[in-house]
């Protein structure tokens, strides 16, 4: 059972969302890292999804109070997190960076965090947090010898030691093996079920799909889509898809494919065909019989734009 912080900040009694960004932007010189983003996050698990360099970490750092927005506002429980160290009583942070003091044991590291939070019983809180992330066996070894996955779990324990109401995690599953990932996801789900707000960033669609209730898709510093994961997943699936096909007779195959209902366009390219289709699944099923009926042998059939970046670009430009 998780013990609650001793006192609630005044904003806890309001109905405001845990996190609220209003037209928040952040730039570094000429580089715009985050551009005019507005969203709010309430208790539950929210995934911040986007390709590397999209601005996810900058958003998390603004919410964590490590970066001041260049314009707009960032509020956490109704307060600005910038230069507001009292908010850290309610916030836990799991950074992407691996560095942990290598000379400390896992237990000492979590205990240090408990003591810095001035918890009334830091040792008890440490034991509980270490147990939560299943690190009891390795807790008395120096962290310098930990694997990446163990460090990720230890950072989660350190972030949880004061039972935060808001947990921010930057790419928390990087380097974590599948069993550890499942366990971490279970811990996060349990915390969310207790009414905590959890925001994590990821560039991997499947991670977000498995864990998040709500999704914020960030591309090039802008909010590309937000809301229920399944709605966004549908948007991603229903977008036009491009394929490259190489066959024994590209011209004859092009004529046959244009008759297929899901095909939106066919273009002869060097040594093959470029086909645009509206329905990924229907088109993939239609191609082999069409080719067979036309007497054409298929050599290659490749989706041309399946990278996450192209999916994100579609969401931005739609």
């Amino acid at each position, binding site marked *: 059972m998780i013990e609650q912080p001793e006192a609630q900040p005044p904003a806890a009694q309001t109905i405001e969302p845990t996190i609220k960004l209003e037209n928040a932007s952040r730039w570094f010189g000429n580089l715009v*890292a985050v551009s005019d983003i507005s969203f709010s996050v309430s208790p539950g698990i929210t995934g911040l999804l986007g390709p590397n360099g999209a601005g996810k970490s900058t958003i998390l750092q603004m919410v964590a109070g490590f*970066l001041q927005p260049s314009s707009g506002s960032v509020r956490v429980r109704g307060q600005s997190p910038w230069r507001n*160290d009292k908010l850290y009583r309610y916030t836990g942070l799991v950074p992407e960076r691996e560095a942990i003091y290598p000379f400390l044991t896992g237990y000492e590291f979590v205990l240090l965090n408990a003591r810095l939070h001035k918890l009334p019983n830091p040792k008890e809180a440490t034991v509980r947090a270490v147990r939560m992330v299943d690190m009891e066996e390795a807790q008395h070894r120096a962290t310098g010898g930990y694997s990446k996955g163990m460090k990720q779990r230890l950072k989660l324990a350190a972030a949880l030691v004061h039972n935060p109401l808001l947990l921010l995690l930057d790419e928390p599953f990087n380097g974590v093996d599948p069993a550890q990932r499942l366990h971490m996801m279970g811990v996060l789900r349990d915390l969310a079920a207790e009414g905590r707000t959890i925001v994590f960033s990821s560039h991997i669609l499947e991670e977000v799909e498995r864990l998040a209730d709500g999704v914020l898709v960030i591309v090039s510093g802008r909010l590309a889509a937000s809301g229920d994961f399944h709605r966004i997943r549908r948007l991603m699936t229903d977008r036009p898809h491009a394929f490259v096909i190489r066959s024994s007779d590209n011209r004859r195959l092009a004529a046959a494919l244009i008759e297929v209902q899901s095909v939106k366009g066919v273009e002869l390219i060097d040594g093959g065909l470029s086909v645009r289709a509206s329905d990924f699944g229907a088109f993939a099923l239609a191609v082999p019989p069409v080719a067979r009926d036309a007497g054409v042998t298929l050599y290659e059939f490749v989706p041309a734009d399946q990278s996450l970046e192209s999916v994100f670009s579609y969401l931005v430009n739609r």
Partner: protein
Amino acid sequence: MNWEVFVLSLRQLLGRRRMFALIALALLPLLIALVFRTGNSETDPVDWTANALLNGLIVTTLLPLVTLVLSTTSLGMEIEDGTIMYLLSKPLPRGQVIMAKLAASWLPAGVLVALSTALSGLIALEGSGDSTLILAFVVSSILGALAYSALFLFLSLLTTRALIVGLIYVFIWEGVVTELFAGTRILSIRQYTLGVGDLLTQTTELDAHLGGPMALTLMLAVTSAVVALAIRRLNRFESRSLF
């Protein structure tokens, strides 16, 4: 000052390799004093101890180098590898972090330099001359270590190249510029340290350029100002790479 941050920082700084190198550096004056005692007997030991050993070697070289290494590591390393995030994400006034970091870098620097001063001074004088000379330099080098530590700590918040900037300050500004232009000596921790040493000793052989009370006042003022600036800087500290 936060005790947890102080202990953590001490453990960070007292790594085996770094301390081995600093202890070796602190042993150098002892070795040179030993060579002096066993060799040249015509030079006045008090004059040599005051100007060559204490001023020339300890205050000019050992003191700034030891404090530079410890102070720039104390915060600089944490900023570089991102572990500072674990200190800054706590309900802890950042002034307490600065004071703990300062204390953690000052303590080993002060102990090393004070021990090196006392032992090498005792070897060089071998019971002769003014006994207040060694005590005066033990005290002034401890105060000098505080001033240097504060300055270099502040530098590590300003730039990732604090070690290089610190070396430029020590060897170009203090070593060359203040020797050429007397007016610049009011901005030299080395001159403050010498002035305070001169204030506390009855030895007349020491060549200090600043008067004792002025040196002490400037040392305390500059140290306080630099600590205040460091706290202000950490309060407004932003980093794109903390997460």
